[in-house]
Structure formats: C-alpha cells, structure tokens
C-alpha cells in the first residue's frame, strides 16, 4: 500500500515525535549508566538545582570544562529535562490528534512515569541512597519501554494492521514474545541489583544476584532464539516481525559478548577460563575508557533489547492472525486431502 494513501487515525507528527522521544531516551539511559559506572551520582549534591543554580542556568563553561563526573551528572540532568519536555509535547500532540482514548491514557502514564523517574533521581541524590539509585535504574528502562510502545502504537503498520494470511501458531508467537519482553525487563532489574549492591552487603548476596543474572541470561537467550526461529519458520510473511526478531538475536549475541567483557574488565579472566583466554599481563585501568564504556554499553544494550522485545511483542499481538484451525488438525486435513 502506498504511503501517501491516507490512513484512518494516523498522524505523521505524533508518530515522528514519539520516535524522537524514544530515540532521545536511549542516550539518556546510556548516560545514566555512565553516571553509575563512574560513580558520578553524587557529583552534584543538591537537586533540582545544580550547586544552587537553576538547572538550565548553570554556567555552561563550568559544566563543559569542569570535572568529568560533574559533566556527566549535569549532562544527565539536562538531557532528562529535555526528555521530560518531549514527553509533554507528545502528550499535547496525542490530546490533539488521537481519537483512541487509551492512547491518551498512555500519554498521561508516560508523563507520570517520567516525573516519577525524575523525582527518584532527585531523591537518590538528596538521600544518597543506593537502593533508590537501583530503583531509579529500573524505572528508566520501564519508561523507555513505554516510549517504544507509544512509537509502535502511533506507527503506520500498527494502524494498518493487515496481514492477509493467517499464521500457524500465532498464539504461541504472541505469548512467547510477551514472555521475552517480561524476561528482558526482569534481567534489567537483576542487572541493577548486581550494579547497586550495598557496600556492606554479604558476599553471598552478590554471588546470588550474579548467578541469577547469568541464569536468566541463559533463559532469555533461549527464548529469543526460540521466538526468532518460530517467526522465521511460521511468520516469514510479516517482515516487521522477522526483522525485529533477527535484530533481537543480534543484540543478544552482542550483549553476551559485552557481558563477558564486563566480567573480564571488572573481575579479571576467571581462573577456569585462563586456559583459553590468557590473563592480561597488565592490570585493567580502573575508570579507564575501555572499562567504563564496556560496562555502560552492557547496561545500554540491555535497555535496547527490552525496547526491541516490547516492539516485537506489541507488533506480534497486532499483526498476526491465528489460523482458524489448530495446526495439528490442519495437517491431518492436508494429509486427508
């Protein structure tokens, strides 16, 4: 269908705005991760002001040329405000252009979530509490998932929602994609637990969190590969699903490599692996470029996986049409014919 053809309920500006919002949220997550990685969270001790200045009036020279962790933390705050304003803008557009009532609900929910997230960030600074930092770190990806959902809901493919041919096992795909999205979020929560373990926690607590994170990583990977395989075999005709699922597989592979690299730059090559990977003869530099960015990339790609999984799950719910008869019955029918 040509793009020029008018589509009921489609608003170019709303969709573009929603995409911009999602695209702006991702770097925010990345920089937020960097704040934790470089322990810059307490670089600015007050909130919502920055050293007494209004957030937007803080002298930019001091920000850009000042210490690294102030640069990161203040930058995180500036970008967060921008994202907040983009959310408000999107809500205005939705209120003006949307006729789906639940979309308006989601718009308000998104605004509420971004405000909650801002307050959590502020409280984390004011109370200097690591548990709050963890909660802040878990809410961020949740908001990102909502922005991705809004971009999906306002998209052309969502509104058009035509898939002429019914798909075998559409129900399975729908459920599995939902499970993947949920697991991806849980994995992020676990990652946040690993990252924000209190300074006086027992070693076995951290060990447990790490093992659980690894266990869930295995489960999530298997699920994603499974989903991608089913989509490749059963729903080839829906390019959006096919592409998204392949992207997910790629991201998971990348994420596993990043995870292993994170372990090595933080905790060195494990003894059992030193037969295959030779240990570094020079120690990793704490807070160095390699370490900081590998660790942060692992966090950010986690969010990206969540976003892709959410998009995949939503599209799967919308685009797939269940075959009228169960697969087994149809096979039997085919054999009979």
């Amino acid at each position, binding site marked *: 269908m040509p793009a020029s053809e008018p589509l009921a309920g489609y608003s170019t500006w709303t969709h573009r705005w929603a995409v911009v919002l999602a695209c702006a949220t991702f770097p925010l997550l990345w920089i937020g991760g960097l704040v934790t990685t470089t322990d810059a969270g*307490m670089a600015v001790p007050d909130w919502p002001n920055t050293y007494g200045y209004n957030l937007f009036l803080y002298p930019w020279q001091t920000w850009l040329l000042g*210490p690294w962790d102030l640069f990161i933390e203040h930058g995180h705050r500036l970008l967060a405000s921008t994202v907040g304003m983009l959310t408000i803008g999107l809500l205005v557009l939705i209120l003006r252009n949307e006729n789906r009532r639940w979309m308006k609900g989601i718009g308000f929910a998104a605004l509420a979530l971004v405000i909650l997230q801002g307050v959590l960030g502020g409280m984390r600074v004011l109370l200097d*509490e690591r548990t709050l930092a963890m909660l802040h770190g878990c809410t961020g990806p949740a908001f990102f998932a909502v922005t991705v959902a809004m971009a999906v809901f306002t998209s052309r493919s969502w509104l058009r929602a035509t898939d002429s041919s019914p798909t075998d096992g559409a129900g399975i795909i729908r459920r599995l994609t939902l499970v993947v999205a949920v697991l991806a979020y849980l994995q992020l929560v676990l990652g946040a637990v690993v990252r924000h373990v209190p300074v006086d926690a027992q070693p076995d607590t951290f*060990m447990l969190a790490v093992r659980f994170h690894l266990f869930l990583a295995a489960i999530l990977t298997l699920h994603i590969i499974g989903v991608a395989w089913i989509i490749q075999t059963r729903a080839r005709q829906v390019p959006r699903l096919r592409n998204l699922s392949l992207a997910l597989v790629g991201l998971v592979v990348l994420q596993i490599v990043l995870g292993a690299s994170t372990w090595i730059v933080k905790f060195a090559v494990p003894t059992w692996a030193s037969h295959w990977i030779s*240990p570094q003869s020079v120690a990793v530099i*704490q807070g160095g470029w390699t370490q900081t960015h590998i660790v942060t990339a692992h966090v950010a790609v986690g969010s990206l996986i969540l976003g892709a999984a959410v998009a995949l799950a939503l599209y799967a719910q919308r685009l797939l049409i269940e075959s009228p008869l169960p697969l087994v019955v149809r096979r039997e029918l085919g054999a009979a014919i």
Partner: protein
Amino acid sequence: MRALALVTATAALVGCGKSDPPPFRLNMTNVVAKQIAPEHQQAIANILGAMFGTPDEPIALKETGLDQKKLDMAAGPVWSDKVGAKHGLYRRHCVHCHGISGDGRGPTAAVLNPYPRDYRMGVFKFKSTYTAAEPTNLDLTKTLHEGIPGTAMPSFALLPPDEVAALVEYVKYLSIRGQMERLLEDHASVELNAGDKFDPANDPAVQKLVMQDMLGPIMESWNGAKEQVINPEDASIPPDNRPAKELEASVKAGRELFYGTRANCVKCHGPTALGDGQQDDYDVWNKAINDFFKATDDKIGQIASLKTDLAKAQGDDATQIRQQIVDAQKEFNERHALLSSLLLPRNAIPRNLREGVFRGGRRPIDVFWRISSGIPGTPMPASGPAGEGAQGTLTQKEIWQIVDYVHSLPFEPASLPQKRPINASEVSTGE
C-alpha cells in the same frame, strides 16, 4: 504489572528506610575461634572505636602518625564537591571488594579469585622490604598505581597522586586497626576470664597495655618499613645491555638453581614451571578460614567422645563432663552460625611462570624482591636473608640469575616437549 513491581520495590525500600552508615565489625571468626566473652567483644569494639573512630569519621591517632586530612578524603560516603574534589574514595574504589573494615569480604569478594586482600593481618604480598617487615608507602602506592595483573585488582593510574596517597593512608589505617584488633582479641582470649574488667577508661594499666605494648610495636614496624627495604648491591645488579652470551649463561645458571635443591623452585612451580607442583597448601588468610572449618568439624567428634565418657562417668565427674558437653555444644553452635558467611578456603596455587603474568610487577627488581623475601603470607619462602645482616640462602647474584631464568620462561616455547628437569644430583648443592 510494572506498576506493581514499582509499588512492591518502593514498599521494600520504605520497609528498610534510610540505611544507617555502615559500622566497623569485629573479625567474628577470630572472636568465635578464640571464645571471647560477649562483654570483652564489646570492650574491644569500644577500644577500637575510641582509637580509630568509624568508617564515616576515622581518627588519625597521634601515635599512629596517620594523616587526618588524607583519611577524611578516603573515608565516608561517596560525593564530590563543587571544585570536583572527590570524597569517600575508599567506598568509591575499594569497598566493593575489600569491605568496610578491610576484611577482604566486600560484596563482590565471593566471585573473585584470588579473594580480595584482608588488610587486617598487616601482611602484604608485594613489597620491597624483608619478609617480616611492613610494606613502605611506595610499595602500596605502586600496587595501586599498577594494579595486580591477572587478578581483579585494577590499576588506579588515572587517579591524581593525592587521591592515591589518601587511599594508601586509609589502607594503612585499616591495617593498623586490624592488627590492633587481633592483639586485643589475643589478649582477651589468653589473659581475661569471663567477668574480668577490660576498660581503659578506668584502668591506667589497660591504657598502657593498649597504647604502648600493643600499638607501640605495630607502629614501630610500620614506621621502620622504609629502613627495611632490600637494596641489592649495585655490583650484583646485571646491566640492562648485556651481551647475549652473558645473558644466556645467566639464564642457564638460573635454570640450574630453579631445578636444584638449594633454591627448590621446582617443588612448587613444578618441573614445567606451569605452577603444577605443590598445590595443596594455604596462604595465611585462607588457612585461618580452613582451620575454622576443621575445628568446627572436630567439635562434633569431641562432643561424641565426651558423650561416651559421660556414659561411663559418675558423680562429680559426670556433672563436669555434662558441663563440658554444654560448652562444646555452645561453641559448635556459634561456629556453625558463621559458616555460611565465610568465603570457602582456597589453596594457594603456585604461579604459572609461563604466562608472563607477574602479579607483583614484572621489572627485574620486582621479581628479585619476590625471590629474595618470598611472598609474605603465602607458602613462597624467602631465599635471601631474613633481615639486615642475616645470612641468605642464595647470594644476590644467584637471585638475579633466577630472575633472568624466570623472565626467559614465557618465551620458551611451551608447545615443545618440556625440557627434562635437571637431576638433583647434577646440581651442586654445596655452599
């Protein structure tokens, strides 16, 4: 559902409220192993609190000569001030592995191999001083600056020198505090009976004991460290640009020493130098935990054999044995309660010398120090003198030859069949 997650998590958070600043805790394995009475445990905690303050407010006692400014910079929660000066450096960089009290039991400790160092014994592996001496400031600074290759200890080369100096000071502070704790616990265990007062506030004898007899020698050892540095004689140091022949001869001599019965390197590092020799020993840190596990096991047997005695005993004897069973059971319970929180003891595995990873540094002088004074706390013994003026097992020249051999090992192709170890009888053992 996500909202539900947030609600639950917030509820959990509200449930525990704002967490208190973490306190220093006693070394409970030592406290339980030495069966220190609860009132003495409290007294020890109080004395240490008076002398060293808290993790948020450390005290540089005048007698320790520590620098209060540096300690303040390193201690407390993590934050930065307006000009970007960092605070809470220890909690920013170290606490995750080394723990609040420097016990090497930070949150990540269990997943690391080797375990992070427990500073509380005042024993450090990589240093330039004689075996029994403390490390110098320079030694600790070097470890921070270069990290420990092959372990989770990273390099802090990016930190400005004043921050590294603050961390070194704080590590010394935690060590001195830990050494003091151990002496107090030893004293309480050996000298005090339940009910005995142990209170410096009202007893000048205890004041003298704590400040002079305990802190005095600890500080003497730390302050004297820089005079205990092993400086190889200039004449013994091989020049950098030796002719290949000379180097080859030195490597060959080093190899003979390596396999010979005087230096005995082969016994632990193995005939292939892959670290595959003696593997079932412990370093002092793991040995303490291993002993704790073993003694806890032994308690079970002891209780059983006391019960057999009880069956045969009569009258006063029986009452006494009954009391012993109660005591042993109580100790067992206290020990058992700690077991789950301990890091499982690991054997000290000799270094694989073919990897080219030298934890204490790879400069010739670093390897020289490792061989000359051994690696304190580990099974690696000293081959040089035990102190100034003492007789070493090997001469400095011989140690340099082993250094040359060890440095040549990573370049010896390991894929080739390993060279046959030299027969002990082929190597001269005489002086």
